[in-house]
């Protein structure tokens, strides 16, 4: 875990809202990194996490099934169906699994922006409090 001191956020343009399927995810390329972006149409909410599943280090989460567990939004990895909270990135099926880094998402009309904490590498887990 790395904690960060600066809270400056860089927002980068990810894609159009229409590029993302309802209740599913897509993978966004950001520099040399990969971010999974999800849209829940019923609650009209957006989430972004690292695309790497920490279990077997597979770039796959954007292709996973989304859903809720007692109201908490989650994604299931296509490989072994471990599920992760999209709110704070923690693994819901295995408390010992590493958490996902989650990123803030912002909309401007039909444009989707993802926020990256400056000074933080994508894909490195960050404590939730830091975000």
């Amino acid at each position, binding site marked *: 875990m790395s904690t960060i001191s600066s809270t400056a956020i860089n927002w980068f343009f990810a*894609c159009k809202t229409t590029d993302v399927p309802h209740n599913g995810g897509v993978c966004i390329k950001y520099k040399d990194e990969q971010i999974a972006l999800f849209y829940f149409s019923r609650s009209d909410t957006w989430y972004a996490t690292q695309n790497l599943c920490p279990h077997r280090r597979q770039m796959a989460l954007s292709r996973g099934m989304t859903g809720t567990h007692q109201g908490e939004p989650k994604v*299931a990895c*296509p490989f072994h169906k471990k599920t992760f909270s999209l709110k704070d990135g923690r693994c819901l099926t295995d408390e010992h699994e590493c958490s996902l880094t989650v990123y803030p998402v912002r909309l401007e009309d039909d444009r989707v922006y993802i926020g990256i904490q400056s000074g933080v590498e994508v894909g490195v887990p960050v404590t939730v409090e830091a975000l």
Partner: protein
Amino acid sequence: MKIVVIGNGMVGHKFCEKITQKLGINTARIVIFGEETLPAYDRVHLSEYFSGKTADDLFLAPAGWYVSQGITLHLGDPVHSIDRVNKTVTSLKGISETYDFLVMATGSAAFVPNIAGTDKKGVFIYRTIEDLELMKSYAPRTSRGAVIGGGLLGLEAAKALLDLGIADTSVIEFAPRLMPRQIDDKGSAVLQSKLQQLGLQVLTGKNTSAILGEDTITGLAFSDGTSLNADMLVISAGIKPRDELAAACGLETGPRGGIVVNDLLQTTDPFIYAIGECALYNNMIYGLVAPGYEMAEVAATHITETSRQDSSALKSFTGFDMSTKLKLIGVDVASFGDPFPGQGHSIVMEDSISGVYQRINVSQDGKYLLGGILIGNADAYNMLLQTCKNNMPLPANPADILLGPRNGSASAGAGVDALPDEAVICSCESITKAAICQAVTDGQETLDAVKKCTKAGTCCGGCTPMVKDLISATMKAQGKYIRNVVCEHFDYSRQELLDLIKVKSLRSFDEALDHYGHGEGCEICKPVVSSILASLWNDMILAKGNDTAQDSNDRYLANIQKGGTYSVVPRIPGGEITPEKLIIIGTIAKDYNLYTKITGGQRIDLFGAHLGDLPAIWEALIAAGFESGHAYGKALRTVKSCVGSTWCRFGLHDSVSYAIRIEERYRGLRAPHKIKSAVSGCIRECAEAQSKDFGIIATEKGWNLYVCGNGGSKPQHALLLAQDLDSETCIRYIDRFLMFYIKTADPLTRTATWLNKLEGGIEYLRNVVVNDSLGIAASLEAEMQSLVDNYKCEWKEVVESPELRKKFSHFINAPEEKDPTVKFETLRDQKKAADWK
């Protein structure tokens, strides 16, 4: 009155529970001393500490329990001496307490044989959480592990080393076979080969003479002159009762250890009791938790009654059944009653193909079960144990209880219904069938609720399957319908949901959720609803916004492989393919650098395709006349065939043509689970039709139709549904059979499992399919026909739709780029996925 307990292990804790229950809280002063620093925890499940459980999960009582019961608990402070004259104990830290009754529950320690070098670094024992913590911190430095002792605990320790990531682990047993006290030679041989498959090396008949290395272990030397490299060793060669304190104050102990007790669990001093693994009853140490709990019960009852000067319900300990089922190791092993045949008969079932060995010992007159051994498959353990313990009469043909009813005879398995009310289902907590059924009648209708209310199944957990069966049986007897609801988002069973969706003509997951669900769905209900929609309407699965409601493989019409690439499996009906088509597959594989392999289903799999390449690969395949093989779907997979009468000298009919006809009829059919079929041209059965969900074998007069076979992890032969059918009738029966399965099976249930749960079994199914006992045959056939008419190759639809093709790219904001993290390696002139982690 004042009671002092020495030892805060499993049995000492149970004693506290029992005594406060019997006397009432605060009627006596209870003081307990524990040598370990943690309060009592579940030692039976100690190994789960390595597979994710924490000390917190293992504690037997919630924090604050002792205080709430008025019990004083001294932890990390062992009792150091007992003064029997003044009835006082003194602890290491100097605390003195007087007692009216003293209970010794000091348990046992690991027995460490007298071998030179057991004090070296890297040598461990396996008894306490502390031992496990030490192992855990040492393991990362280790590449070769060894365990001395091939008994129950030794095997558990070996599994723990595997779990710690030490793949190269050996088990060393002094006796010529594993688990010498529980199982026989043959059983041991089967167990040994199973363990070897798990990656454990097994050395039997080995006497360790020394532990090698300077001050850190480097290996083991054996008395036969051989040696073994190892940098970590766990000694698990047996247990040694902790009787040192008892011996020091003059209580009688056994020649090989243990505090001698009578059948009230009193030691030679009537004010001092000994219970659990430190007690020697009738020359026997009971190294299991259930007898220890029984001892706690007897001692607590006796102390209560002595203090009340009432001996009306005097209880005594009379020995205990030592049946055990090995947990955790990944191989079923159980022994019960008397595992070794004495007088009487033995029935032995040995299947060296699937690694199953089962022996039951039956009384001379063939009427009663005396004991037995189950290796490789111990599903029957609970029922056999109960049959044995309750002296229940065996079926006329005792072998039936092992082999199940044969030749279509009625069920031989006496189910839970046949058990007497007094049958003890959970022996750890002594919970009877009657108590469990009562709890269910009182409204505890889930496993968790019953566990909470009765404590059944909370200790070793071995009885859980039987508790579940009792819950279902009791609810059924009350006329309650047991519904397997899909998940938290839909309060319906799959069968109910299918009917509802059909009645309302719903076409998408979203509509189903709007009408019958709540929340946003999840990875359980989405595939279930998607499968129902496909089985009802056979619409293109990626249309109507249903793509994200598909299981991940269905969403991309391909199976994801290690590394994140996909496989491509074109349909090759009946396994028949022209040379031209073979060449095309080869060309495409070369163009896209794909690994090719002949599958076990008589077709060709192309592995390692990037997501973005899938549409182009399929475009080329479709242009050459191929179609999707639905290898990714819970759908019809392959219809295998033998070559049949066109070439084979024994062939009765043209099995290839018939297999192709069948495969083309049911291709794309989605079901609760995948379905497979095969057609053989004669009874030699080269297509293995009897291992399929439905299989067809040519006879002189037509075709025999078999159903509900299964390969996979629990293979099962298909059963004959109908004989000597003409080709048309056979297809009509298959239509009815498949449609009936699709409509009534639970999610992810193959036909074999479905049939096993279907009340009335194959006779009932035959009545529905052949005799149309429900009067639904015509509608089943019509429904199947509409699915057949609606079939389209879904890959063809993707290839032809720019909209759908767009969905097959790795980066939405860089659609041309492939996932740069995908890595391949080379093996035998082809590529393979790079290993993960």
